[in-house]
């Protein structure tokens, strides 16, 4: 048996299984012979690391990836960007299949730049600097792609107010990628074909307010009201065309790394830390600046934070950070204290939020790489974290790094076809074992999930 895995980044169970289902004829038809349901993502439920957790059935701590960026050598400002080399010796499903002589074709799965050798072919993800780079394995594949579809589009700048332009770019990127997928499905040998369409994540972040009446910035009857629905319809149309190319001996999976929900606002973590005496500035900034550019008094600062869909908090520890002040023996006590205080943080209306605070050690049996000291989901992720300073307040109604209407929800989707029609609840850790099982390959013992039956 072979497998085609269709990755719809950010596909949201409430939308595909309910709200838009009637308008997605191909998807609906597929569900009649499918095992499907919500798939719980990892912690944190973010594109990087979630796709890699799906491809390995290994937790982010063991993989050593906690997001797009990480601190370099406990620096206050230096970062490294997630990339494939950081876990190149970790077996991804295509590495395991390769050992059995099976061929894989992997497209756009983050983070796969730089593309590493495999038995098959690969096109890297949106972490690729640009299309002038060697973004394929084997290298010659790039020429073939350009001949077939022109310049490959990795991503679109989606945090923009130029919404018409964004719609045009999203449709163009998605159509081009699907044309390429159709070409490769027919022209390459493969046992596993797995591609990820990032456009769905972008369209939901950029247009959520126009269709969700509960969104605090909802604009009724906006011309963009149906953009998200229409994008799902575009995916559905392409799904139908892909199904026409597939033989009966191919299992089809449709999966997402996490879901989406409305953003209630941005919580300025560093503004809050300043007000609560954890972070001290030498001078108030005159404009909005990132923490890296702020005039921080490190001799008095105990903790600072990063923005993102979840907040990462770092402590200024003696002997670890350059100007660390928290003695090592007080570190655990301080972590507990700050975690308690953050759990009591209030929203813009003065209500205590449903905020979740974790230490990486609580979430993962081992913590490789550069983990933060605390991980925070403000109001169960409804409030994103803003890292910038100089707003003069803690709560923002909009994102600080450009327009963004949605945040991440913990559950994405899982669909397997053909299978008995039944609703299930899956875990992202179950995906790799289920895929290997479907392809008749023994499941390695290190995998953390189970086979979905």
């Amino acid at each position, binding site marked *: 048996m072979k497998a085609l895995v269709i990755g719809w980044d950010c596909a949201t169970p409430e939308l595909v299984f309910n709200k838009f289902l009637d308008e997605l004829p191909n998807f609906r038809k597929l569900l009649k012979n499918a095992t499907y349901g919500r798939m719980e993502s990892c912690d944190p439920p973010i594109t990087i690391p979630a796709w890699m957790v799906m491809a390995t059935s290994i937790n982010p701590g063991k993989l050593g990836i906690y997001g797009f960026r990480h601190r370099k050598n406990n620096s206050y400002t230096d970062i490294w960007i997630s990339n494939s080399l950081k876990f190149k010796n970790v077996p991804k499903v295509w590495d395991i299949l390769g050992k*059995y*002589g099976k061929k894989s074709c992997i497209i756009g799965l983050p983070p796969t730049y730089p593309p590493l050798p495999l038995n098959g072919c690969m096109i890297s993800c949106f972490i690729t600097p640009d299309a002038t780079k060697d973004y394929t394995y084997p290298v010659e594949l790039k020429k073939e792609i350009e001949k077939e579809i022109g310049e490959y589009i990795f991503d679109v700048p989606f945090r923009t107010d130029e919404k018409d332009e964004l719609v045009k770019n999203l449709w163009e990127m998605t159509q081009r990628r699907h044309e390429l997928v159709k070409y490769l499905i027919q022209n390459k040998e493969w046992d596993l074909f797995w591609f990820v369409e990032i456009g769905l994540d972008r369209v939901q972040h950029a247009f959520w307010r126009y269709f969700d009446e509960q969104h605090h910035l909802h604009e009724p009857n906006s011309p963009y009201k149906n953009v998200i629905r229409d994008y799902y319809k575009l995916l559905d149309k392409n799904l139908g065309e892909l199904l026409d190319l597939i033989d009966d001996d191919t299992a089809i999976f449709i999966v997402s790394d996490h879901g989406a929900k409305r953003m209630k606002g941005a919580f300025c973590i560093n503004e809050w830390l300043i007000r609560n005496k954890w972070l001290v500035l030498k001078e108030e900034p005159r404009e909005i600046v990132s923490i890296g550019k702020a005039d921080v008094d490190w001799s008095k600062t105990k903790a600072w934070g990063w923005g993102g869909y979840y907040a990462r908090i770092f402590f200024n520890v003696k002997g670890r950070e350059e100007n660390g002040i928290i003695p090592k023996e007080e570190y655990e006590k301080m972590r507990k204290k700050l975690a308690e205080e953050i759990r009591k943080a209030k929203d813009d209306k003065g209500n205590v939020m449903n905020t979740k605070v974790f230490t990486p050690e609580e979430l993962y049996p081992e913590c490789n790489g550069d983990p933060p000291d605390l991980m925070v989901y403000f109001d169960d992720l409804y409030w994103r974290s803003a890292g910038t300073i100089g707003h003069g307040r803690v709560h923002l109604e909009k994102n600080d*790094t450009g327009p963004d209407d949605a945040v991440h929800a913990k559950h994405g989707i899982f669909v397997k076809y053909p299978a008995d029609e039944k609703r299930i609840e899956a875990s992202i850790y179950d995906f790799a074992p289920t895929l290997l099982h479907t392809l008749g390959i023994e499941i390695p013992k290190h995998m953390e999930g189970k086979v979905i039956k």
Partner: protein
Amino acid sequence: MTEGKEEKGKYTTVSIPTPLAEKIKKRIEGTGFNSISSYVTYVLRELLASMEEEEEEAFSKEDEEKIKERLRALGYLD
């Protein structure tokens, strides 16, 4: 170990002992490897990749700035 039909210049011939070739032939029976060459290429690539230095950088300095700029434009960095 020749791949006659391949484009000239992109492939070269390497000699391996016949018993080893026989062993590989047996090893790949019933797998997706359709030739000794494809198996040997796969194994060598794996080996070389694992031998490359751990600290190899993914991005040159210039590329790192480029990708940070793009991630900033995407709103992932503040």
